[in-house]
């Protein structure tokens, strides 16, 4: 069995996660977690839709920020995709997408403040990096045949527009629509740092234990995402795109001097700013690395590895929920609803909820990451099993699961899992803002102490860690010859 490289790699990752568990801080510290969880579910079933006058506005803003952010991201991502062969462009894109939307928001908040531009750029910048990568992959796969049929002397641009684009159009459209859904999630969580989207009210209701209010907001958010196919129509898109910028809210005016100050003073390391020169820089950097970066990296890696394996296990358990090789249509519909709910809830919000209910430790984070990502991968491989044709005399029940389906989907399951490795790490880092001691905790602490120089170094460390994991994930996928679709 261990001769198979996919099995070997699975066991290696399982072993790493088990060792990680020895070091991880896993505990339920709340004295009555089940009562709180009960209150929370009670809140969900008794939603109060009239809690806040600002709720509808917040929902509108959530949509507006998502539209403007994703539109700008896809536009610039497309331009970058055209020159993606260039190494500096690749590195630039890898870098901007390695920094989470919330980190971008925290950076822009320091000089744009509560201006709509903060939220728009926080979404547009990392999304441009992601779009550039995926669009370029799609363009690369385009069929070269139609291009050869053109008469000699056809201009490059014309050839591009008439041969490559038509071939890629459907894939690009599908992917962009998927990113819009992600954009809604990103937009919602930006409220947690003070932008006027749904997260703003969700955080306020939750922290005060107003579960009925919070429940109503979550329900509205699910409905918004679940009904996307109904209201996101190609014909309506121009209206949305033109209208969205007007619904971002006024915010507060930008003072441009602040932008200059941020780049020329705030983020310059303190020893340099105070004229201590390079001699002062070494102890400053040492202190930062040893006391903040190293513990942050350690906790981020440990949590990521545990969450990755938990995600894998959960995906394998979850896919039968929607697979038509098991159960009747009733159960599958219920399965679909369950998976839609877990994957529509941003990890950040799930982790926030569980932290409130169970108290601080890595456990809420692991469960949140596993639920969200497991929901996504479970959905994708569940759908894949639906295209499998089994022999009429194939075994049923547990044997069908273990001997027929899992082996057939295992390779694409691993491909999805390694694809999401970097995404899980990005989220793990950001969950530090909620009080788990990952890199985000130290970034947030530096920002709370108005030490942006330290915050920027730590964000840089986080980005490099992500780029490293992304490269490693790609290496493993290539080694094992695992293929994935970009829409994961």
């Amino acid at each position, binding site marked *: 069995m261990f001769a198979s490289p996919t099995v070997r790699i699975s066991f290696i990752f399982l072993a790493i996660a088990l060792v990680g568990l020895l070091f991880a801080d896993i505990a339920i*510290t*709340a*004295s*009555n977690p089940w009562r*709180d969880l009960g209150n929370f579910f009670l809140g969900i079933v008794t939603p109060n839709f009239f809690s806040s006058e600002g709720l509808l506005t917040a929902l509108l803003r959530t949509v507006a920020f998502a539209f*403007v952010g994703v*539109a*700008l991201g896809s*536009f610039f991502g497309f331009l970058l995709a055209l020159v993606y062969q260039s190494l500096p462009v690749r590195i630039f894109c890898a870098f901007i997408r390695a920094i989470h939307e919330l980190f971008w928001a925290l950076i822009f*908040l*320091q*000089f744009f*403040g*509560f*201006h*709509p*531009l903060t939220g*728009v750029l926080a979404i547009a910048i990392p999304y441009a990096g992601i779009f550039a990568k995926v669009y370029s992959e799609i363009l690369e796969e385009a069929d070269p045949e139609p291009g050869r049929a053109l008469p000699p002397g056809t201009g490059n641009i014309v050839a591009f527009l008439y041969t490559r684009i038509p071939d890629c159009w459907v894939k690009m459209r599908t992917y962009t629509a998927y990113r819009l859904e992600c954009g809604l999630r990103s937009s919602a969580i930006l409220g*947690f*740092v*003070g932008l006027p989207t749904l997260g*703003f009210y969700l*955080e*306020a209701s939750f*922290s*005060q*234990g107003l579960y009925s209010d919070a429940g109503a907001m979550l329900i509205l958010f699910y409905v918004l995402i679940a009904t996307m196919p109904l209201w996101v129509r190609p014909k309506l*898109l*121009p209206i949305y*795109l*033109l209208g*969205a*910028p*007007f619904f*971002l809210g*006024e*915010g*507060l*005016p*930008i*003072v441009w001097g*602040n932008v200059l100050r941020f780049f020329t003073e705030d983020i310059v390391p*303190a020893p340099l700013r105070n004229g201590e020169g390079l001699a002062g820089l070494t102890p400053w950097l040492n202190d930062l690395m040893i006391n903040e970066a190293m513990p942050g990296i350690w906790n981020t890696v440990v949590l990521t590895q545990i969450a990755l394996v938990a995600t894998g296990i959960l995906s394998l358990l979850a896919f039968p929920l929607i697979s038509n090789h098991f159960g009747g249509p009733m159960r599958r519909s219920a399965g679909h609803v369950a998976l839609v709910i877990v994957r529509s809830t941003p990890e950040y919000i799930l982790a926030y909820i569980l932290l409130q209910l169970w*108290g*601080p430790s890595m456990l809420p984070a692991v469960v949140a990451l596993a639920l969200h990502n497991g929901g996504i991968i479970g959905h994708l491989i569940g759908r894949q099993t639906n295209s499998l044709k089994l022999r009429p005399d194939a075994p049923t029940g547990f044997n069908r699961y273990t001997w027929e389906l899992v082996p057939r989907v295992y390779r694409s399951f691993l491909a999805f899992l390694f694809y999401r490795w970097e995404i899980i790490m990005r989220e793990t880092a950001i969950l530090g803002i909620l*009080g788990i001691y990952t890199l985000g905790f130290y970034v*947030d*602490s530096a*920002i*709370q*102490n*108005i*030490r942006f120089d330290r915050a920027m170094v730590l964000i840089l460390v986080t980005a490099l860690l992500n780029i490293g994991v992304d490269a490693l994930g790609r290496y493993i996928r290539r080694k094992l010859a695992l293929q994935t679709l970009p829409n994961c």
Partner: protein
Amino acid sequence: MALNIIRKLMLSSFLCFTAAAASAETFVFTAIPDEDETKLVERFRGVADYLSEQLDVDVRYIPVKSYAAAVSAFRNNQVQLAWFGGLSGVQARRLVPGSEAIAQGVEDEAFETYFIANSNTGIAPADELSDLKDELQGKTFTFGSKGSTSGRLMPEFYVRDTFGSKPEDFFSRVGFSGNHTRTLRLVEAGTYEVGALNFQVWEKELSDGNIDTDAVQVIWKTPAYPDYQWTIRGDVNDRFGEGFKQRVTEALLNLDNPELLESFPRSGFIPASNDDYEPIRKTAEEIGILD
């Protein structure tokens, strides 16, 4: 077609931003988010109405999600006045030369932090923190916000000073609840065994009957220190007219609406100066949260 849409989109967003920038001669203030948001919004909307009436300009309150966001908004001149804690005020005034502490609550001259414990720990109140060493060691402990004076700075100072070690070494688990109300709720519920909070929040919740005194009690009170204050930017006169700073100061000192004062809760506002907060600055430097 797609390009066209994007061009229009960018143009319209540009127009939208400039329109927002043009409509601003409003006096804007903020406050550190030290308590439940609903309470803060209610309280500071009342203050905004009062100031607007007194000063004859549009006054707007904006809620923020963190202490640092309040400081940054003040520094970036997106707000011109703020209700800061001791530490956030010191941070803000260091970053904005010319800014001044103009008024503090009567209670802020001698503010206190209460250490509270869940009753299951069996810790009895003591007069000296050092008497509680054995009982507190190895317990779980929560501060308020990372940038709070009464919820973080002072309690951390006394823990280090009394027990000679960092909080994360002395306690088995250290958290940051986010604000004082949440610290109270978390210790009451037993999520953390011990916590430290702003004494005014405790007293107000107690008199409103919102505390289960069988579940949580005060175990130690810190010596007094200066805390909350109204801080205003030095350049408001240039923007809102000669004598504006003086008028804001007077309006705050004359605030006597009992309901509004009760919501802080303060019995009134008295003059303050930057120098009043020197002890806070020194303490912050000592524990390394201020360079």
